């Protein structure tokens, strides 16, 4: 039986999965499906990183180097921590993929920074909300993919520190 190959399948980018993962990130309170992280793709994360850099550029800050540097080192730290805390290991690509997807709310924050300055009470509160949003989504995906219930807040805290650094980059 002859089956035509799907165009996105040949490119290796599965738009449906990317959209699904994005929806999971945008709704941090809904429990995640553990199987969505089975194929790790870096297309979405790279897109969000570039979007973050672009919105920061629009706000007048040229900091691509810091973004990529902090992402790499932060991913390494979370990768080590997850391997220590979970009974099954994770790959570096999976960690980078999840952290990259959960960067989406930060892109929203930095696009807000284009229109109004974030230094001030409202900006600080907004940044804190976004940090909590990002880290809750990331920890939710990690614990459902790695079967680590009971440890969500323990994972969320280091993720919050990492996203806090990104927020500092965005606000100041």
């Amino acid at each position, binding site marked *: 039986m002859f089956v035509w190959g799907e165009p996105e399948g040949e490119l290796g980018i599965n738009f449906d999965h990317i959209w699904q993962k994005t929806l999971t990130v945008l709704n941090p309170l809904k429990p995640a499906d553990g199987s969505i992280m089975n194929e790790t793709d870096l297309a979405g994360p790279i897109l969000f990183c570039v979007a973050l850099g672009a919105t920061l550029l629009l706000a007048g800050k040229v900091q691509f180097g810091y973004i990529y540097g902090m992402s790499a080192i932060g991913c390494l730290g979370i990768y080590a*921590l997850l391997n220590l805390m979970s*009974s099954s290991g994770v790959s570096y690509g999976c960690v980078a993929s999840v952290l990259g997807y959960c960067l989406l709310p930060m892109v929203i924050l930095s696009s807000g920074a284009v229109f109004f300055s974030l230094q001030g009470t409202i900006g600080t509160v907004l940044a804190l909300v976004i940090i909590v949003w990002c880290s809750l989504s990331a920890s939710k995906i990690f614990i459902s993919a790695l079967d680590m219930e*009971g440890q*969500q*807040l*323990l994972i969320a805290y280091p993720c919050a520190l990492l996203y806090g650094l990104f927020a500092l980059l965005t606000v100041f």
Partner: protein
Amino acid sequence: MAAVDDLQFEEFGDVATSLAANPDATTINIEGPGETPKRLGPPRGSGREEDDELLGNDDSDKTELLAGQKKSSPFWTFEYYQTFFDVDTYQVFDRIKGSLLPIPGKNFVRLYIRSNPDLYGPFWICATLVFAIAISGNLSNFLIHLGEKTYHYVPEFRKVSIAATIIYAYAWLVPFALWGFLLWRNSKVMNIVSYSFLEIVCVYGYSLFIYIPTAILWIIPQKAVRWILVMMALGISGSVLAMTFWPAVREDNRRVALATIVTIVLLHTLLSVGCLAYFFDAPEVDHLPTTAVVPNQTVVAAKSS
């Protein structure tokens, strides 16, 4: 086959020898109701009753047995360290709560750690403390010099690395020295209670938690407030440490025991006072000259009227 007092090998030895002599014989092993299980620890002494209160858990023998089976992977793999991160959220919160509420007679290690020391708590508490001190120090300096026109605020990132070095060195080197010292004393005097290196690291790490809100409150530029905060934090974490290590040195020479506890508290004091002095500028008392001027003016006005 010498019979040791606490180890009841006699029955097993008989069975073994009789089986060795006659492999085909069937043997019946009837356990009496009053048989006590094999003890792994040192012989029971008079101080054991108090330690039972402190133990808070009767299955400590089981956990000792399990603890002996832990480390089997080589130390350069992740698996070796996985046993030290095997904690749930509520366990970490419980341990933090235990470090904030020192109850006399309750031993932090026996009650909360129970042969499951974790490295997650100490590592992240130290990291948070480093950030808290660095950020609060910068913020307080910024606020103190806010009105001065000649002062240009520069965020000092160098202080982050200094704070990190100091706090991580304290959290690892002092437990290491204390562990070595206790080991040395254990060889001289038989102590009932002895702690492993990781348990000591754990206690020190969790005892530093109280300094996180203290560091944030140190932003308030009042000298009296800051010193009251130091006293309170020192009281709480110092008493947690003292109550943890008192059972370990109690059996020893009175002077050595007291000297050990005093040294522990002294080092803790040094850390907190040093952090306060180095990272937080003293609030200036420059409003004093203006208040001295006003009474003079009222006196002059009273004289001239």
